[in-house]
């Protein structure tokens, strides 16, 4: 195995380790929420979906998507293929986290609000993010030349990043000046300490899982790129 290939292998191994830690962390938070965290009086047990839903949303919106966009912008400046590889990995993982948000959201909404989908501002934004990321993947799959793919992905990523605040603004405008109140806000200081702690553990686990999955996806792509380069010779 060449030195480069063994580098790829070690990245993959590191990714597997971190991902396993992340998965165990998410499972541990679920156990914590189910058995130790107090139940919220008005919403009932279903409120605890919060401890999986919010960390996924936070990670997707504030880590995964910006990482993709900024890595892309850096690529436009530095032309380093590693940046594109990272952007692609982050985009793919973002998609998965968005899916978790979009699935757990309605499951939470149904018992609380009585409807599966209420065009809630934050869920709607996540829905758009999901479609942007889907478009990103679709476009990447349709371009064969890696340099062109990297450039176009960076352009799409940059435009998507600028779009997000506009979507946020226009969705809230569309829903009127009285958006549905969300009973528990993560930044709400009146969250009782046990709930806050569980939430923070949840966010920590999600972040570790994100880092692990991106590392793993990156390593796999690196190994593939190396193999293709070797085949070409």
């Amino acid at each position: 195995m060449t030195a480069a290939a063994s580098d790829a292998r070690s990245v993959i191994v590191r990714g597997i380790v971190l991902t396993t830690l992340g998965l165990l962390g998410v499972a541990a938070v679920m156990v914590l929420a189910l058995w130790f965290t107090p139940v919220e009086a008005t919403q009932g047990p279903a409120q605890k979906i919060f401890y999986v839903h919010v960390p996924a949303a936070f990670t997707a919106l504030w880590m995964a998507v910006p990482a993709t966009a900024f890595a892309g912008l850096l690529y436009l400046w530095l032309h380093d293929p590693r940046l594109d590889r990272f952007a692609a990995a982050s985009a793919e993982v973002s998609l998965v986290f968005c899916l978790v948000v979009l699935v757990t959201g309605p499951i939470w909404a149904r018992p609380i609000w009585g409807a599966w989908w209420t065009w809630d501002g934050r869920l709607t934004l996540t829905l758009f993010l999901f479609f942007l990321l889907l478009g990103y993947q679709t476009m990447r799959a349709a371009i064969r030349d890696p340099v062109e793919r990297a450039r176009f992905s960076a352009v799409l990523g940059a435009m998507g990043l600028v779009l997000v605040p506009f979507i946020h603004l226009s969705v809230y405008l569309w829903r009127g000046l009285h958006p549905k109140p969300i009973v528990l806000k993560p930044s709400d200081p009146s969250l009782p300490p046990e709930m806050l702690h569980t939430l923070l553990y949840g966010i920590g686990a999600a972040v570790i899982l994100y880092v692990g999955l991106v590392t793993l996806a990156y390593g796999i792509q690196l190994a593939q790129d190396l193999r293709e380069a070797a085949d070409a010779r």
Partner: protein
Amino acid sequence: MGNLLRLAVVLAGKDLRLELRTRTSIVSAAVFAALVLIVFNFARDPTAVATIDLAPSVLWVTIAFASVLAMNRGFLVERENAAFDGLLLAPVPREALYLGKFLANFAFVVLVEAIALPLFVLFFNLDIAHALGGLVLTMLLATMGFVAVGTIFSAMVVKTRFAELMLPVLLLPFMVPPLILAVKTSVPLFSGRPLSEVVDGLRFLAIYDIVFITLALLLFPAVVDE
């Protein structure tokens, strides 16, 4: 700056002349808009929902879809004749290329809208003469938003497989803010509210346009240059 604009106008003129000679795209887009309006008419129950409530949505969905259709032709013409490489080799600043395409696409979509709007008024029996000024302004601003993003995306997808499908897939999320703002502005106008009441919506539309045209100008060289 003035040079850039002049170049852009020249490029746009070439595009429009080409288009007017064959007229296929304009006719297809206009026919499409008419068909959508007709289908909407049959798909609604006038006793259940008042026309005036449904009208803005119908108008804007029609415009949105017809715009995407109209922009699909985007860079296809150049690509088919390898003329694009010629354009790139010429000492034309990339910004002028984008602006030229933008102006051509914009003129094109506005032309389709100019055909769709009277049909809309006709089919839905609306008296919106009082709102015409505001409506036209809204249409122009929203169209600028659609075309700003559509132009750079069509340059990107023209080389991919399934280009005609890829453009709407990428473009639709970007069309949502101008769409929402356009509908929000149209509803009061249709109900007879004065223009002064919808100035905020128009301002947001203008901001969207400025931001994305600037962004597209900055990013366009990265799309067309090797």
